């Protein structure tokens, strides 16, 4: 039973006083930003990255991971009580969650969301522990050609699963890849696209890009819409759910968990897509789908379970292949690099305590989240009543200090202003910024592996097709692209994303 001894090792690491504290801090902060609409895990983690320099690597990663899955819990609170997704992944929860709240069942909706998330978190933790080692084994056989092909597959999958225009999403990835080139070329020492600025010779920090594209642009867009936030201030009571209600919700929770686990592994997947898929499937297989949209408990249980297991499963490609499947995981790569840990299959063998400690902390964090979110729900409700006009200046202050303290350099702040403008333009043109960040992170890795692969094959590009693993990966990528380009699938995809955007 290697699994059990591994988990025991992980628990030993995660249960030290210091790590429990950082885990708690992470999930607390995650809940906080999850509850608050307008700030998500990407800018928060980006903001906290510089602070983690001083921490031991395990504690840093435990805390940052806690922010991500903690945000999934917090987001559901806002969705249920305010009919606003506190987190993009709780968009679907708004539909039935808010209806339940309107019928005076807010407490029950919150309970089932938290219980479902906890069950999902437990399963997802076990799955990460069970599947990561065999996958890492495969990854150890990878050469440069395989890595390049895998990244192509990852980027294509990210595009396919993203909402909106395909061409624009590919363009955003290319733009991200190009931004990644800025700085000193590792092979020749040449300064590329630095425009003579010494500050750019090390490249642009991804925190700078994340702040500009995600935090600043989002605040600006929020301020452009003059809408008043309607807060559901009724007393939240009746947290206890009946056994019969739990039995009704349990199959939905389990199905949601499964969907989240599967979709979370895919690049570009993660929380949002999982939640959406789980809701749709639940509605399809229900005997009486008429109740959905009117406050059906399954309509809360399934997506909330799915987004939590999805967010945790997205750690699998990061930890085993070293490839981040979404923007949050891209930031985790950054966190690992800060501590000079190269993410990839070797992490498990060279740093078993870090690897298993992180996994075990996820389960502990989930346990804390249930406690944070149910008995202490009153605090979060209070927080929702803070008006946005008081919130966003604070968010801006934290972003600025976070950006500055990266290198104690104001140049990064100016650069983030530039990316704020760019992010605003992207929103106006309906170009999604998430693929850009993914491309930016993978860019240098891709160029390096492409160069190496072609150097080894003496410039023969057929190396990508003659090596079986690489060929399989590229074929998969091609199949994915063709499938999405088919007119029939394209129509379905458009419909699916439209349905998802409606309740927002």
């Amino acid at each position, binding site marked *: 039973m290697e699994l059990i001894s591994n988990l025991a090792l992980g628990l030993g690491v995660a249960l030290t006083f210091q790590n429990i504290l950082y885990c708690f801090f992470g999930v607390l902060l995650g809940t906080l930003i999850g509850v608050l609409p307008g700030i998500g895990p990407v800018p928060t983690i980006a903001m906290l990255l*510089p*602070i983690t320099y*001083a921490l031991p690597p395990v504690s840093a990663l435990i805390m940052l991971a806690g922010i991500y899955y903690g945000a999934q819990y917090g987001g559901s609170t806002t969705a249920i009580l305010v009919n606003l997704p506190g987190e993009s992944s709780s968009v679907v929860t708004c539909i039935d969650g808010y209806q339940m709240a309107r019928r005076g069942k807010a407490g029950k909706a919150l309970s089932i969301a938290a219980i479902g998330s906890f069950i999902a978190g437990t399963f997802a933790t076990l799955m990460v522990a069970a599947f990561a080692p065999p996958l890492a084994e495969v990854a150890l056989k990878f050469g440069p050609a395989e890595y390049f092909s895998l990244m192509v597959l990852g980027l294509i999958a990210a595009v396919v699963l993203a909402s909106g225009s395909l*061409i*624009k999403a*590919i*363009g955003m990835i*290319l*733009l991200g*890849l*190009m931004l990644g*080139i800025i700085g000193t*070329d590792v*092979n020749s020492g*040449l300064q*590329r*696209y630095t425009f003579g600025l010494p500050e750019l010779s090390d490249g642009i920090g991804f925190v700078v890009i994340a702040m500009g594209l995600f935090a*600043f642009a989002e*605040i*600006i*867009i929020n*301020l*452009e819409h*003059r809408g008043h936030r309607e807060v559901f201030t009724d007393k939240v009571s009746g947290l206890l759910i009946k056994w019969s209600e739990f039995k009704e919700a349990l199959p939905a929770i389990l199905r949601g968990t499964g969907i989240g686990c599967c979709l979370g592994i895919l690049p570009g997947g993660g929380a949002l897509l999982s939640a959406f898929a789980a809701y749709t499937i639940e509605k399809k297989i229900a005997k009486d789908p008429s109740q959905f949209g009117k406050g059906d408990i399954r309509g809360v249980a399934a997506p909330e379970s799915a987004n939590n297991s999805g967010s945790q499963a997205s750690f699998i490609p990061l930890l085993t292949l070293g490839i981040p499947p979404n923007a949050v995981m891209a930031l985790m790569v950054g966190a690992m690099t800060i501590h000079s840990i190269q993410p990839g299959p070797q992490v498990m063998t060279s740093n078993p305590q870090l690897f298993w400690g992180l996994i075990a902390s996820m389960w502990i964090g989930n346990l804390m989240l249930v406690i944070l979110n149910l008995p202490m729900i009153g605090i979060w409700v209070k927080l929702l009543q803070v*008006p*946005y*006009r*008081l919130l*966003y*200046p*604070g968010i*801006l*202050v934290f*972003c*600025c*200090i976070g950006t*500055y*303290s990266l290198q*104690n350099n*104001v140049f990064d*702040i*100016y650069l*983030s*202003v530039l990316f*704020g*403008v760019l992010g*605003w*333009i992207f929103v*106006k*043109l*309906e170009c999604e910024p998430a693929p850009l960040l993914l491309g930016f992170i993978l860019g240098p890795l891709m*160029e390096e592996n*492409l*160069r190496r692969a*072609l*150097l080894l094959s*003496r*410039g*023969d*590009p057929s190396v990508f097709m003659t090596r079986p693993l690489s060929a399989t990966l590229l074929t998969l990528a091609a199949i994915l692209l063709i499938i999405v380009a088919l007119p029939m699938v394209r129509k379905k995809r458009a419909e699916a994303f439209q349905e998802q955007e409606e309740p927002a």
Partner: protein
Amino acid sequence: MALIRHPKDFWAGVLFIVLGGGACIIALDYSFGSAGRMGPGYFPRALGLLLAGLGAILVLRSFKLVGEPISFPTFLPLGIVLLSVFVFGISVNALGLVVSTILLVLIASIASHEYRWKESVIAALCLAVFVVIAFRYGLKLQLPTWPSFLVGS
């Protein structure tokens, strides 16, 4: 403008062409090398061309597909928010964390349509105190706290 029927696609296409083409032109100065021994110019040029190509498709498509116009309800938040961040940037080294934070909050608050100046003054002071406690003393970040002409540096 009747020719451009999908303005969002059109301008996204233009943006891609400008950025991709620009990157390509700059990369002409970097040696291209060959596939076997790639120079620093190989990857950027390939990417730039691809991006410009996609941009061209978007532009051409925008003459055929129909899409909504781009909406600009107000430019005030864009200007104010980014200005406040910029002011923080130019002031933080000389004036220190406290003054910069207050300036940032006071300026940024104007962007809200529910702006009340008294409220924003109080918020600015509270945040300044919190920031100093949390970042200067709690996390021990290396930031100048007070204006350099007051404490001398």
